[in-house]
Each structure stands twice: as C-alpha cells, then as structure tokens.
C-alpha cells in the first residue's frame, strides 16, 4: 500500500514536470506569434508601391517611402557578401581539408569567439579602422562591418559541411591522378554545396537585420545611394530612426519597414532550410 502511494506520488511529480516543460515551450511561442501579428497588422496598411520605390518625404509631409533604404540594404549586403563569402568559404576549406592541428584549433576557437563579439563593437572597430582613416562615413565601411560579422558563421558552416563529405570521395579522386586543389574544388566543395549554401543564406539573413554596426559606419541618408564612399541608408537603421522619432506617420513607416525586413529575413532563413532540407545542423 505504502509503496503504491509512493509510486503514485512520484508519477504525479513526473507528470507535473512534464507539464511545466510543455508550458515553457508554449510560453516561448507567445512572443513570436505576437511580434509577427503586430508587424503584419501595423505594417501591412502602410505597405504599398510608393513605400517600396519612393524616397522619404521631409518632416511634416506624409507619404514617401523607404526605397533608398531598401536599395541601400541590398548594396550593403552585396558588399559584405563580396568580401565575406570568399574569405569565409576558403577559411572553412582550410580548417576542414588541410589539417595542421594547432593552427586549425586556434582558428576554430577564434572564429567561435568572434561570432560572439557584440555587433556594436564590430561597428566601433570598423569605425576606427576605416571611417577615421578615410575621414568619412561610407557604404564600404558598413559593408566591411557586415562582412566581419558573417565571416565566422560562413567559415564554421563550410568546415562542418566539408567534414561530412566521406573521405572515400577524396581518395577516389586523388587515385585518378586529379590534383588536390581540383579534388577539393570540383569534388568536395561541390558535394557539400547544398549545405554550404544553406549556411550562407542564414548568414545573409543575420546581417540583413543588423543595425548596430551600421549606425556609425554606413550612417544614414535620405537620398538614393550614390557611391561606395558615401553614407548610405539601410532598412534597419531607417526603422530605428523612425521608431524613436516623435511622428505618428514615421512610426507607421517603421512598422511597414519592419514587415519588409522580417519577410526578407524569414524568407532567407526558412526558405534555405526547407529548400536544402536537413543538410546542416543548427548554426551556432
């Protein structure tokens, strides 16, 4: 009898713990749902063709849009990708294919640590490195800051993906007399291509939403982008500027901008995962 009672009490505790865990998961989904609902409900009414294609109007006039910020964001992401992708993929290749244990260990650890450095600090770094020396805020500086941010993710994902390629493929290729670099480029990287692409798209999704490192590198602008050496508007910085300004019309536009940004980021991250399947584990 006593044993039964004890057992049922233990089962009750177990059931209670189960419920708590289930509840935690449910609670985590509430803010996600709320944020998505608000961004859609508040942003959709202000989202129209003008918003996507027009320049911002001066304070006091309603209307206008974030066309320049959208173009600016694409430009910054382009610069970041042009710098960050080749270096990241090559660094990952080095980590996976050329095994010099001590250096690889160091680079791997440093890449992990770099990915944990707050993005605002990368902004300060690029400011002292580029903005101070060039004596101007520029699209280039913003792009470099984003490139630094995506570099560790791309390198580590590439490495993990290449490690999943079986050695037998490398051996088969080398046995045919194909040189080592051709083996790596045409066989190994090609085999791991889907996974690497997924990692790249996730890295792009991450930098697309970054605001802090752009605040004092790319700065902001109310005109169309004119060159790499000029300040440039971006969607996240524009949302920030509008959100903290005291004008209701700007708040509306900030919501619409957020809707565009969230759609962009979710399309990149959800799309890449669905498209390439489960080729990669979650990126940390």
């Amino acid at each position, binding site marked *: 009898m006593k044993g039964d009672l004890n057992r049922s009490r233990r089962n009750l*505790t177990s059931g209670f713990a189960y419920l708590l865990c289930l509840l*935690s998961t449910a609670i985590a989904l509430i803010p996600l749902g709320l*944020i998505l609902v608000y961004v859609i409900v508040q942003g959709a009414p202000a989202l129209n063709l003008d918003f996507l294609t027009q320049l911002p109007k001066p304070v006091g006039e309603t209307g206008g849009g974030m066309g320049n910020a959208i173009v600016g964001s694409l430009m910054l992401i382009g610069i970041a990708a042009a710098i960050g992708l080749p270096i990241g993929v090559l660094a990952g290749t*080095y980590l996976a294919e050329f095994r010099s244990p001590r250096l690889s260990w160091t680079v791997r650890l*440093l890449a992990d640590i770099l990915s944990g450095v707050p993005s605002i600090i990368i902004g300060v770094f690029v400011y002292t490195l580029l903005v101070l020396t060039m004596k101007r805020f520029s699209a280039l500086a913003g792009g470099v800051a984003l490139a630094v941010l995506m*570099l560790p993710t791309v390198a580590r994902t590439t490495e993990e993906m290449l490690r999943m390629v079986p050695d037998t493929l490398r051996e088969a290729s080398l046995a045919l007399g194909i040189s*080592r670099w051709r083996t*790596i480029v045409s066989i190994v990287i090609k085999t791991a291509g889907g996974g690497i692409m997924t990692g790249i798209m996730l890295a792009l999704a991450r930098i697309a939403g970054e605001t802090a490192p752009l605040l004092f590198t790319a700065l902001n602008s109310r005109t169309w982008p004119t060159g790499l050496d000029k300040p440039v508007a971006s969607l996240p910085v524009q949302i920030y500027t509008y*959100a903290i300004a005291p004008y209701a019309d700007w708040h509306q536009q900030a919501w619409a901008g957020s809707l565009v940004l969230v759609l962009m980021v979710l399309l990149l991250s959800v799309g890449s995962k669905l498209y390439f399947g489960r080729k990669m584990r*979650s990126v940390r």
Partner: protein
Amino acid sequence: MSSINNLRDKFRDASRPARGRLGDTLFTVIAFLAAATIILIITLLVYQLFEGALPSIRAFGADFLSSSEWDPVKDIYGARVFIYGTIVSSLLALLMAVPLSLGIAIYLSQFAPRWLRSPLGFIVELLAAIPSVVYGLWGIFVLAPFLGQTIEPFFADHLGGIPIFAGPVYGVGLFAAAVVLAIMILPTISAISRESMLNVSSDQKEAAQALGATPWETVRMSVLPLARPGIIGAIILGLGRALGETMAVTMIIGNRPEISASIFAPAYTIASVIANEFAEVTAGLHMAALVELALILLVITLLLNLLARLLVQRTGSGALKRKRS
C-alpha cells in the same frame, strides 16, 4: 578502426602536394591566408580598441570603472552607471530565460513526440531570426505600454515597500529591457542545452529506467547531470549575447544614466551609450571614453565566450557521445 585511420593518415601524407604542383601550393597558400584573416581580425580588433581607448585610460585610470559621472560638458567620464545597467539587465534576463529555456530543451529532447521535435525546435529558433530593431519597435509600442499599465503597477502597488519593486513605473526601463532580452536569448540557450541533452548516451537513460525511474527522474538523474557542462556553456553564451545586445535595449531601457534600486526605473547600458553618442563625437576624450567602454564590453564577452566554448566542447566529446539507435 585505428589501423584504418593510420593507413588513411599515411595516405594523406602521400597525397600532400608534390613540389612541382603549382596549383596545389597556390590553393594551400590562399586558403591559409583566408584562415589567417580570422586571427588577424581578432588581433586588430583588440589592438584598435586598446589604442583608441588609450587617452581615456591615461586620463582616468581605474577611476573610470568606479566613477559614475559621465559629463561631456566637463569632459569627465566614468563607466559605473553603464556597467551596472548592462549587468543588471542581463542578469534579470537570465533569471527569466534560463528556467524557460531548460523547460523547452527538456521537452524538445526528452518528452515531445518524435515527429514534433524538429519542427517545434525550428519554430523556437525563429525567435533568433527576428532582427533586434524589430524587437525594439515592438518593445516601444506594444510591450512597454503593456508592462507599464498592468504588471508593473501590480508589483508597485502590492510589493512597493520592497525597494526593487518601488514605483514610479514608466513602462520603459530595466524590467522591460530584461523581458525583451530574455525573449532574444531564449533560442540560444534552449538550442545549445537541447543539443547537449541529446548527446547524453541512451545507456544512461536506460539504466535509470531499468531501476524504475519515472520519466522526470530519468531526466533529473541521468540527463541533467551529464549535460551540465553544455547547459552551463549555453547559459554563459546567452549571457554574452544579452550583455552586448544593443538596439532593442537602447530603444526601451529609457537611456537614463542613473543607478536606482527599483527594477522598474530607467537605466543605461554600455552598448546603448555607444549607440547613442558615438556618431556624434569625432575626437577627443569623449570618443576615447566611448572606445574604452567598447573595450570593456569586448573583454567581458571574449572571456565569457572562451569559457562557454570550452564547456560546450566537453559535452560533445568522448564518453557522452550519443549512440545512433
């Protein structure tokens, strides 16, 4: 197994680039340079921030950490208020995020039906995909007013005698910032904890079950102890993210350089003051002081990340490796 590996190593040696193969040498050098870029960036990062902070370090020395005066007009700078705001907002966030994250990690790795695990895990991780500035926007217009009208007055009215819950309440402030931070670090902590729980070998769980343990007892006796280093690592990584989070916090912490006992009061963090003031200054002691703040934040996050990585590596290796069942 090991003899095959030996053979493979020998084969690798044999396949090293022969002297004559220009392409191989070139490719090796380029890949090496790319990998070295990461070392270069970290080195430059520390050097640049240190050099930029030097005037402020010379002017204020250790007083910089303890002084709470931040006055650009008199050109006197102290970091205490910002260090306080950064640490308190992050710890409050951990207080909320850790129990929830562990609950999620346990549910997703042990209790949830198998078909639900991966999609549900993916949805939780979507929280990490939402840009910080969108959290900030939502924080300003939805969360802060909600907290300021419901939860905060409730605490201030009933527990206002205790200084940490004292009013007045504004909505924006430390507490609102901590709630948003908690939401933002939740996916980090839960994803990595879940991974280390999955790495616990099924032998350990079966042993507990064979002794008649209930599902919860199995988790408590075999999963949690073995996953502990990974869980602690996950919490430290979450803390690192919270300390450096900028936009969302800047938008809702109130940006008031004060230290007050109440968690409902406005405050200011290191990252926020950099975000607010950096673009406006061009040189001088003010700039150096801001760079020194960045340096302090960098050193803290570098150390935390190093510690966390070493801990997470421990659960991923050797005896704890998950068996493929």
